[in-house]
């Protein structure tokens, strides 16, 4: 046996986070949670197939509340109502609240917390893994929906493609923002899943419907400024969407979302540094 090792310099938070990312991504991608949420992401694709079939059967095109709806508008509505307002918060809640909790439940956290890395690097690395994993889950679903829906009504795929890239960027920002918020919930609060679901599907939709300052306490308020799609006009749905679209400017939204991500992740990191994680024997 060789002589005892001398003390080696400890890796930085960034390097450590990248190594935790390497370790976690595969585990996260092939987890039961990813399989289940992958199936959930098949829902919009099935809906898009159904809409495509309906539009093919009725040559007059596709109408919402009597108004003619072009493919890009329907796609925009699906991005906002299905992805941003439902799927992205669901992914954020289920992954974000469990970034550390999964390792604690599986009792594998010991291996990570007895290595010469700052504990917050474990959270940051797992957050990165979450982001990549969820983007990889969402990407194929959105692409399928795009190619199925946009051509409805004769719209060109090519001219709508830049909007698709913007939508994907917006979804990634949404995943980052919700994931960071729910990572904080997961590291600081008890029953994080319930609190997360109440926040995403109780608090956010409720305060968005009313004028005032409370809506600034949501992620959706800032995300909706990034939705660039034209919606169908002269209908109850479009009126409702106009209420939703009482939004800040894009720079304000991007800056606010950056602050939300940065502050919540930092606070979550602090919680992981200071908290004891007692494993059940």
């Amino acid at each position: 046996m060789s002589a005892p090792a001398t003390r080696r310099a400890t890796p930085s938070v960034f390097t450590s986070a990248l190594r935790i990312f390497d370790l976690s991504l595969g585990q996260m991608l092939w987890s039961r949670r990813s399989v289940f949420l992958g199936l959930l992401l098949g829902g919009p694709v099935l809906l898009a197939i159904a809409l495509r079939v309906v539009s093919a059967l009725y040559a007059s095109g596709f109408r919402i509340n009597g108004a003619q709806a072009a493919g890009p508008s329907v796609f925009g509505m699906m991005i906002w109502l299905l992805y941003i307002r439902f799927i992205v918060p669901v992914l954020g809640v289920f992954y974000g609240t469990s970034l550390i909790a999964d390792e604690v439940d599986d009792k594998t956290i010991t291996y990570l917390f007895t290595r010469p890395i700052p504990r917050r690097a474990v959270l940051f690395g797992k957050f990165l893994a979450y982001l990549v994993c969820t983007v990889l889950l969402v990407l194929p679903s959105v692409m399928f929906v795009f190619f199925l829906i946009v051509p409805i009504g004769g719209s060109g795929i090519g001219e709508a493609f830049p909007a698709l890239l913007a939508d994907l960027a917006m979804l990634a920002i949404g995943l980052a923002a919700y994931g960071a918020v729910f990572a904080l919930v997961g590291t600081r609060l008890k029953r994080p899943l319930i609190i997360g679901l109440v926040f995403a599907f109780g608090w956010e939709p409720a305060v968005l419907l009313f004028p005032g300052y409370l809506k600034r306490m949501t992620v959706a308020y800032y995300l909706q400024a990034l939705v660039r799609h034209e919606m169908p006009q002269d209908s109850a749905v479009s009126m409702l969407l106009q209420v939703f679209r009482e939004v800040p400017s894009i720079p304000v939204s991007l800056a606010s979302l950056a602050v939300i991500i940065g502050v919540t992740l930092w606070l979550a990191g602090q919680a992981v540094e200071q908290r004891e994680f007692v494993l059940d024997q």
Partner: protein
Amino acid sequence: MTGEPGTRAEPIVLADHLSKWYGQVIGLNDVSVTLPPGITGLLGPNGAGKSTFMKLVTGQLKPSKGSITVLGEPIWRNPGLYTRIGFCPEQDAFYERMTGLEWVTALVRLNGVDDTEAAAMARRALETVELLDAANKKIGAYSKGMRQRVKMAQALAHDPQLLILDEPLSGMDPLARRKTIRLIKEWGRAGRSVLVSSHILHEIESMTANILLINQGRILAEGNVHQIRDLIDKHPHSVYIKADHTRALAREFLGHDDVLSLKFEGEAVVVQTGQPDAFYSRLTDLAASGELGAIHEVTSPDDNLQAVFQYLVKS
């Protein structure tokens, strides 16, 4: 620090009025202890406070009261110290889809070494625990003994100065047990320190004479506890054995005077012996010869140790 056993070197662990409680439950109660370099055995029945002590030593828990230093430094929120410590936890928890080599390499990378060096260190560690042949198999397909050994590998891969092993022999077959005990003793002889916990006196005794007795959150005794040895014979020792041919094994055991009783539990046989040293030695020889088939798992419930502790507390 040299880590040479027997010299007046810096203590590996220094606990000063250390207490830990979980709400109203006391895990460790006002423990003051100095562990010298070399191999130290932490012995106590389940629920005695061993795991709490191990978690405090490895910086997973923060002391409620008092202080603890490891290799001269406080351990809580001191990640740099983990470059000098290797920890093999008790729990049977892994990333099951990874291979042994991938898992150990990934953990060694967290020590700040590059990919190539990490892979080389992981291979060396797996070779040390004799698991190199199964290095590319998924951990999910490992036997209990292999899982124990891969846990050991991740603890020693970065060549730490202090190795902390929580119930390392649990579930190992007799041959793996013998090899692991030999490895721990070699580690001690090479100038490193080892803190190893167990609820089986015989196991600890085979590694070191320097024992720390813990029960109900308190240290009962420390040092070279020879008297404890005599208590073993007074309290029958139970051994749970899973093997291919338990009935043939039972017939073999019954021919020896030290076997007091035996019973079958499913595919296992539980033996009570008055002389665990002789029994384990014979069992290892049987496993090595293979004449009565493979012996897959050997564990010992802590009833006998509990009896010893009750005796100690009363006396």
